[in-house]
Structures are given as structure tokens and as C-alpha cells.
């Protein structure tokens, strides 16, 4: 990046810090769920907390911070946020379909019932 970065005003740093802390806490909670929950179909819910709210909070913090630092809205954090919001459901639907297919062909009782 070629534009010059100035010092960020204190209110912007406060807002940034609070948003980063909230996002990191939510991500950590999602990952604790990923470790603690018992079977795959419960575990697949937990990390989406970090992939939606965690990404949202931290990238809003980045947008505010770099807007205050450069004086104009930053494009890259918006791109990252939009991309993560679009792709996370797609990947998880594909992964769960593959898991259901595997469990049903093996006759595993954990697999969800046919509708």
C-alpha cells in the first residue's frame, strides 16, 4: 500500500480494541465447542460462531481503524468480510453432505434420518 498512514485518533482505537476483543472471544468460544462437543453433527455448528460473528467483528474493527488511519474507506477488509460470509455456508454444506453420505453408506446410527 502506498498511502501514508497517520496516527489513529483515540476514540477509533477504543472502538477497534473493543470490537477485536469481542470477535476474538467469540472465535475462542466456537473453538472450545469444536473440541468439547460429542459427535460430528454437533461439532459442525460450533466453529461457525467464529466464521460469522468473529470475522464480522474483527473486520469491522479493521475497516474503522484503517478508515481513521488513511482518511478513506479501505477496500480489502470489506472484500475479505464479503468473501468469508459467502463461502462459509457453501463449504460447510458440502462437507456435511459428504459426511452424511459416508455415514449412511456405512450404516452408522449417528447419521440423520432420511426425510
Amino acid at each position: 500500500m502506498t498511502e501514508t498512514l497517520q496516527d489513529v485518533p483515540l476514540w477509533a482505537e477504543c472502538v477497534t480494541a473493543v470490537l477485536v476483543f469481542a470477535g476474538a472471544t467469540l472465535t475462542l468460544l466456537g473453538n472450545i465447542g469444536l473440541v468439547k462437543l460429542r459427535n460430528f453433527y454437533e461439532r459442525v455448528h460450533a466453529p461457525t460462531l467464529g466464521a460469522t460473528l468473529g470475522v464480522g467483528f474483527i473486520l469491522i474493527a479493521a475497516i474503522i481503524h484503517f478508515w481513521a488511519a488513511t482518511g478513506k474507506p479501505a477496500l480489502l477488509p470489506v472484500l475479505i468480510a464479503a468473501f468469508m460470509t459467502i463461502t462459509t455456508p457453501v463449504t460447510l454444506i458440502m462437507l456435511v453432505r459428504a459426511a452424511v453420505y459416508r455415514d449412511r453408506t456405512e450404516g452408522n446410527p449417528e447419521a440423520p434420518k432420511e426425510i
Partner: protein
Amino acid sequence: MILQIAIDITLLLGQIMLGVAMLLAAWRILAGPRAQDRILGLDTLYANGLLSIVVFCIRENSMLYMEGALIIGLLGFTATVALSRFLMRGEVIE
């Protein structure tokens, strides 16, 4: 001055929490028990690495590494889709 120190400590705490979250995701990759759990752990690890790079950018007040975060997001999406297709069909490109 005190507020500045509090802001620094808060950002550092955020980075530490993201690091612990990455360790937990890595534990899920190692522990399994099945292939889909490992893929889920890898996807989570990618997302946490992206967030950790963004927080690093905020602390350093530099946009240099933000493109790396974007590339990690793209590669994570591709990797998870390819691995899910492999689980479903047994091959990635038919």
C-alpha cells in the same frame, strides 16, 4: 496514557485468544476421530489464521499483510471444497 496501555493490552489479549483458538483447532485435526472432523478442523484453522493476520495488521498499523489474509481466505475455501468432494466421490476432478 493509561487508556493507550489498556488498548494495547486488549489487542494483545485478542491475539492470544486467537492463538489458543488455533491450538484447539489443531488439536481437532490431530485427534480426529474421522476424516470429516479433520477437514472441519482445517477449515476452522484457516479462518482463525486469517483473523489473527488481520489483528496483527491492526496492531502494526500497516495494510501490508491484509492481502495475505485475503489469499488465505481464498485458499481455505478451495481446500475445503476439494477435500469434501474427495470424501464424497473418491476423486477431486472427474
